[in-house]
């Protein structure tokens, strides 16, 4: 929340400063922001709705059932896959991960889950492809998935 506030203050401060330098350029910047915002808005709404619907059919309790308990290599891969296909707000994820650890889940599994959850995005791929192209999207996500498993395994060894 605080960070969001700071970003807003910085943006408004920069805008005010920009106006003192050139109002023509500032108005152009505002127009660019507005047009981009309008173009991106349907994507943002779509992603949010999709996340909401998906999460309601696979609630945290279900995830808890799969990721808790004895660690196996299947479970680590499953954790990475669940993290890939789901998009859960951080506000929910980190407490969920914490309670999973408390109830006996392994750090390896949780690391795999958290890393793919944040770095690999299945739901957001159409937007990523539109904005960054198929190739960057494909390689970035694929490599992030593999590195997530490597990170998880090393964390398992270290902890």
């Amino acid at each position, binding site marked *: 929340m605080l*960070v*969001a506030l700071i970003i*807003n203050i910085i*943006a*408004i401060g920069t*805008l005010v400063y*920009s106006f003192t330098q050139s109002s023509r350029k500032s108005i152009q*910047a*505002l*127009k*660019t*922001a*507005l*047009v*981009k*915002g*309008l*173009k*991106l808005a349907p*994507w*943002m*709404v779509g992603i*949010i*709705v999709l*996340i*909401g*619907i998906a*999460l*309601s059919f696979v*609630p945290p309790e279900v995830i808890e059932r799969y990721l808790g308990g004895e660690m196996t290599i299947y479970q680590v891969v499953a954790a990475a896959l669940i993290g890939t296909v789901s*998009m859960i*707000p951080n506000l*929910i994820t*980190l*407490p969920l*991960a914490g309670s999973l650890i408390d109830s006996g889940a392994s*750090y390896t599994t*949780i*690391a795999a889950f958290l890393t793919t959850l*944040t*770095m690999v*995005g299945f739901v*957001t791929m159409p937007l*990523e492809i539109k*904005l*960054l*192209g*198929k*190739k*960057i999207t494909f*390689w*970035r996500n694929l490599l*992030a998935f593999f*590195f*997530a498993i490597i*990170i998880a395994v*090393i*964390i398992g060894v*270290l*902890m």
Partner: protein
Amino acid sequence: MKQESIADNLKKLAIFLALTAVILILMRYLFPEQSALSLEVMRDYSMEVALIFPPVLLLMGLADVWIPEDMVKQYLGKTSGWRGILLSLFLGTLPTGPLFIAFPIASEMLKKGARIANVVVFLGAWASLKMPQIGVEIQFLGLEFAFYRAGLTFIAVICIALITDKLLKRSEISWGKILKE
């Protein structure tokens, strides 16, 4: 940017919102139990996006008129090397909010001549190395776990970026399909 372009996009957005409303109403009747939960998640996410997206757009607009392409090329371009990687990493750790808000920024970076490696580093840092997020992670998962995860992710993000950069040529990728006029 012309006036029609704004009106046009407003119309598209209105149609999209109407469709979304229909889906949500259908869901309320077909799956009343899930509907309540999904609305709650949507509300939380919308709040986050509503707080972060406007200032990000504003900063993107300002960057567009004030930051010359040469400057982006100099600091983040092909020849920026490790300095460019570290700068992108640093830029990615500052904000908050979900990764999909970073995609338009990354797209602008590419358009202005940033190196692919730097764009991928920026996205990776935004996804998993955001400082506010690591703070919360320490709280719920402990310092040791957060420290190892962040350290390993730091290395992984740089590896992913350098591999992607090696595999792809700038000329082969098509970016910014939505934002281009």
